[in-house]
């Protein structure tokens, strides 16, 4: 299932040897490796990558909204290893109906604010996150602005020329 190009990357090979069921696909483009991970296995995969493959830093967590496609959301993890001087992107596809995924806070504490941001702007819930509240938008805001079905002017105001 994995292309030869992806299999040549040591990280992909190691991950496949560790847990073949977690890895559902991969692509190597522009010198950047992207691996698709089964959302149920994200925490164990990240633990393995941090412990055995030296990905000590989580650079960022974000999401993509493929509305109206299903599964709608893709959670994107940008990993970085200082020692290997290598970057890796993990992606998990999750459904648009009640989107939920396990938090990787237990692996990297740095995931805290990034997951809160994704929760705030995309409305994806992170299970086992210690403090999952809005971070950028005000408390009590309705809707999640970075969703593709959220109008750029918001819901609240109408403009005379529209």
């Amino acid at each position, binding site marked *: 299932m994995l292309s030869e190009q992806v299999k040549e990357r040591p990280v992909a090979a190691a991950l496949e040897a560790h847990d073949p069921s977690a890895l559902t696909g991969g692509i190597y483009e*522009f010198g950047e490796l992207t691996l698709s991970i089964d959302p149920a296995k994200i925490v164990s995969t990240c633990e393995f990558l941090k412990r055995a493959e030296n990905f000590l830093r989580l*650079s*960022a967590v*974000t999401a993509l909204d493929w509305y109206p496609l299903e599964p709608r959301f893709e959670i994107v993890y940008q990993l970085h290893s200082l020692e290997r001087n290598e*970057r890796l992107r993990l992606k998990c596809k999750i459904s648009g109906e009640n989107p939920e995924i396990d938090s990787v806070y237990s692996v990297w504490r740095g995931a805290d604010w990034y997951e809160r941001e994704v929760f705030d702007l995309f409305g994806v819930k992170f299970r086992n996150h210690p403090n999952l509240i809005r971070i950028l938008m005000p408390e009590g805001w309705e809707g999640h602005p970075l969703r593709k079905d959220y109008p750029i002017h918001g819901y609240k105001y109408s403009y005379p020329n529209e």
Partner: protein
Amino acid sequence: MSESKVLGAGATLEAEIEAGFDQSPPHHKLMTLNMGPQHPSTHGVLRILLELDGETIIKAMPDIGYLHTGIEKQCEGKTYQQVVPLTDRVDYLANLSNNLCYVLAVEKLLGMEIPPQAQWMRVMLTELTRISSHVVWLGTHALDIGAMTVFFYCFRERENILRIFEMFSGQRLMTSYFRIGGLALEPPRGWEKVVGKFINGFDANVDQYESLLNSNPIWIRRTQGVGFVPLETMLDLGVTGPMIRAAGVAWDIRKSEPYSSYEKFDFRIPTMPDNDVWARYRVRIEELRESCKIVKQALAGMPGGAWQAESPKVVLPQREKMKTQMEALIYHFKIVTEGFRVPAGEVYQVIESPRGEIGYYVVSDGTAKPYRVHMRTPSFGNLQVLPDMVQGRLIADTIAGLGSMDFVLGDTDR
């Protein structure tokens, strides 16, 4: 009521004083203090909820989002070239670094080759940005701690750099000088003289800052040993830039993942082992000198030739060509009215900004507008370390610690 608490006739003065200074509950209470969002030393609209026991901080809870302007959402409604001015507004002290990161990401998606002069010019101007950002940091940080004079000297140099930016782009702050495919405008006539005059005198200016601070006893007492965070915590939280270099990690994206021909420049990565406010100050001062070295090298070896890529579908034609050639006019019309299509794909481009790692994650679905632009900003990542830095310390050290992080709230909230 216990015996010792009852005061009456016959009680000694000592006992009365002791009772007055009784520290046991119920007199002993925690106080919650709201610092910001308008506090001058939070440098913007950061709000921190502090739980205090006397002057000691028990718990600090940063609250951000006051400057959230939805830039990422706005990017999705603009063409690729129109996003460049938005990236200026992300980190308003290091606008050219943000421009650079974004254009590099899109150029990677387009598979574009940028001519050497544009690459070198980008290096030179981002290093000037680094200098201007660091001097603003130094001036305001010193002002927080109580050394006022440094501020005036620092802003004198910043003014000169802003004049250089104005000369290049017509703008002092929101330059938008880097465009997809090269530079926005031809480098102005006589820029070598202006940049040369500034940069040749700059080392002496850094000496001047150091002479004001290095042996200043107040500065030393307020910075040395203050704001320590264990290195493991910093790595766990994803701290980048001068903060991590002051913890002894020699990691600089300009060296480890060079971009825009940084590999051709000779500079070193300053590090300090102590991981306190003083170490961060030393690292940034050394970085000022290294940036100065890079600008001098760029000045000496600036290649000539084109400053924009040969790519008529992406780069706007020159005015003269547009007025005389039919094709140039058509391309101009197409780019202005509908933009250009970028092949589907995704890219995570990282560069070293004055504050640390900027990462632009640009996803294209093959249309003329980006499907998603995520900005991994250094201030957002670095600010997470704040509770670890200040909890259990004195409230006065919070000011020094906050200043040493060098965050920009526009960068945090986007």
